[in-house]
């Protein structure tokens, strides 16, 4: 009987041991105090954001471009929050709550594109550059340095003008934001990965790979690169928040997505500028809060994870706690021994 329950608890311990090695869960387990607060708060904002984006069609009372109710009556303009329109309507007559909920989908797409594209390009370039060095490396480093001086937003405006002539549907609007972001973000991934790979190239196990007669690409992708990706998740989270901001800024400046193509918070904010002076708060506050929650979520999470990854900012567990743990372990051991003897 006891042996069975023991086996069970061992099994549970095994599952926990494996769980604890997964990213994010490991970070939470290793964190303590303020760091854990940052990570958990950030993570819950992000999860909320993703869930809302996925289930927007179910959650939103109306479509993002809907101007008429099911009864065929046109929505009023700048209606205050009511049972029919929980967060009121805009100056064009859209339902604010629906726009905010649908807008999360657009934002999520922007995040995905703004994160995936630069990684797909930046990481391999950085790896090749850091491993082989030589003239290619010099050229790439110079280019990436040059890009550092580019203002993101200006670039995004130019790209959006090139792609869509300024006003656009959902995909051209997203794409112009994503392309502009990629240009600026690629150097970030490139730099980090390049530096790490080039440091690892003199490390024993990379040298060992070469000494065994492995090809350069095998050594690079099998040995060096997996060890060079430590800081990539951090850049990812920080850039994700930035991607939402850039998309909203484009919309705010009038270079974004048409309201009929997709819901986009920056556009809504732009249209609500006049409302604020007229005492209408709901058209500006709601999309604004949505942007803040998401950017804050990514930033808090990123900072928290960064703190955990840096051993110097991590506090060792307190001695009192460890002593207690040791005592209970000893107590349990002696208790088990006593039981054995009793048998």
């Amino acid at each position: 009987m006891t042996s069975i329950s023991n086996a069970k608890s061992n099994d549970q311990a095994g599952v926990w041991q494996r769980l604890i090695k997964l990213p994010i869960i490991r970070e939470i387990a290793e964190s303590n105090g303020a760091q854990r607060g940052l990570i958990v708060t950030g993570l819950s904002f992000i999860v909320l954001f993703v869930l809302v984006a996925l289930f927007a069609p179910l959650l939103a009372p109306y479509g993002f471009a809907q101007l008429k109710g099911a009864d065929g009556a046109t929505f009023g303009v700048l209606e205050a929050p009511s049972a029919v329109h929980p967060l009121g309507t805009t100056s064009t007559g859209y339902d604010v709550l629906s726009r905010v909920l649908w807008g999360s989908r657009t934002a999520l797409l922007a995040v995905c594109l703004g994160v995936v594209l630069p990684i797909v390009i930046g990481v391999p370039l950085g790896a090749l550059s850091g491993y082989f060095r030589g003239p290619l490396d010099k050229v790439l480093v110079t280019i990436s340095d040059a890009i550092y001086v580019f203002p993101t937003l200006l670039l995004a405006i130019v790209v959006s003008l090139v792609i869509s002539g300024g006003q656009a549907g959902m995909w051209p609007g997203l794409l112009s934001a994503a392309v502009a972001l990629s240009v600026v973000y690629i150097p970030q991934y490139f730099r980090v990965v390049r530096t790490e790979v080039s440091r690892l190239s003199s490390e024993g196990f990379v040298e060992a790979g070469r000494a065994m007669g492995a090809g350069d690409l095998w050594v690079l992708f099998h040995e060096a690169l997996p060890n060079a990706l430590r800081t990539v998740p951090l850049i990812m989270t920080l850039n994700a928040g930035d991607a939402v901001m850039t998309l909203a800024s484009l919309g705010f400046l009038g270079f974004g997505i048409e309201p009929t193509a997709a819901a986009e918070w920056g556009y809504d904010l732009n249209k609500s500028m006049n409302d604020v002076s007229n005492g209408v708060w709901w058209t500006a506050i709601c999309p604004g809060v949505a942007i803040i929650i998401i950017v804050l979520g990514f930033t808090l999470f990123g900072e928290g994870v960064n703190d955990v990854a840096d051993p110097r900012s991590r506090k060792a567990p307190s001695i009192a706690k460890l002593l207690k743990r040791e005592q209970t372990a000893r107590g349990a051991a002696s208790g088990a021994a006593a039981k054995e003897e009793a048998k």
Partner: protein
Amino acid sequence: MSLLDIANLQIDFPTDNGLVHAVRGVNLNVEAGERVAIVGESGSGKSVTARAILGLLGDDCRIRGRIMLDGRNMVEASAGDLAAARGGIVGMVFQEPLSSLNPVYTIGAQFRLGLTEHGLDDKKADELCLEYLRKVDIPDPETAVKKYPMEFSGGQIQRIMIAMALALHPKLIIADEPTTALDVTVQLEILDLLKRQCAESGAALLMISHNMAVVADIAQRVVVMRRGSVVEEASVEDLFTRPRDPYTKQLIASVPKLEVEDGDADSGGLTDVDGNDIDNDIVVQANHINVFYKGRRLGSRIHSVQDVSFEIHRGEILGLVGESGSGKSTIGRALIGLGGELEGELSLLGTSVVGASKREMRALRERVGFIFQDPGTSFNPRRTVGEGVAAPLRIHRPHMSDQEVNSKVRTMLEAVSLDPDYVDRYPHELSGGQRQRASIARSLMLDPELIIADEPTSALDVTIQAKVLELLKQLHAQLGFSCLFISHDLAVVDQMADRVIVLHHGKLEESGVTGQVLHHPQQPYTRKLISSVLAPNPENPQPFKSVFA
């Protein structure tokens, strides 16, 4: 009353994996003017004990017990008392010469800072600085004070550190592995200097070391530590002639010894250690090879190996000996086409390495195994030991099934006396010695004809080193591979190699049958090298000095 009296010292560090009991109830005392050594392997708590004396451990750890230094309890001392004791009562010399001085300040500035902190004015401090630099034989102290740490060699930095430690007439010098990072010839000079200066100034010396031979040379009394406890304490004569504790005996027995006296040089034909004739088949033939590295300035080259010739016969172990910067590792790497630019004639297993294509080179590497120095980094931390050991098969036998690979890996791990179940462990879960065994297993995966072992045991504790060397020897006898054994340690090479070549500043100094070279060195450098070897024997710590110096 003793100068230093440590009673029941216990030090615990909090870590993520629980409390680490680094020091468990240590008692130790040092009388005024006495030279005491704490000896132990890594993790024995010797350095932690020494650092606790000056409160250098930080606030995280828990220290219990008593450390009476010159009548004051340092465990409860205030920050001011500690600051006064550091430098004033106790001078400290650290292990790493390059990181113990601040690279952005001149020697003079750092010297002065240490002294003015203790209330001296600048003028007096500068006078003392020159006086003590002269005492430790720094040539031309007036210009030396204006130089930066990087302009000095490791040995000179250690001299400067000793000068700084002595300048305030401390009653105790604590030297934590002061010669471990230095070459043997330099080590001897530093030990002599420490002894002489302590005697002159009347300071006591507390020396921390892992090296039994160093301890035999410098200490009057020895404390042996293991896993945070003192296992034996005795006068140096007693400890080495009548060790009581089995661990001390093992520690002394593990020190590789250079046997010069009793070996009469057999100058006959080539014979290996077991007396068998060595096949005249040649595995490596190097004729006047030169290796260059790119210099810091554009177009400049560093000539790191200069006009070296040697050959390795099938089945023999060739020892390659030299101090740091002698080019010995460069030669090992050049053999398999790694590292700098190679010129001259170098053939490996019948193929010329100079001008070989990448494809040819890779095919050659398949037939050569490489064992690296640092077991800490020679395995990819993200892959299991099994995957690491299997890598040569994955590279060169891509069609082998997982099952075959797995069984071969397990057989190999068994062959190097590792538990085959370690395949699923990660490198950091293994000890240094175990990782080095795994590294040997990996180098043997493809039945290589040549093994290049680059300082395979110099990062290991002596007791572990003895076992790994034994394993290498036994595998060599079984498998009959040829071996280039690179080491800075003459005694280790003496144990392992059939023939030996001695390198100095990239040039070949001497080569020949091991016994011949070590018994009858022809070159002055080889003689100096041999006479610098210390033996774990307090009555005659430098047994070869009189013979060869």
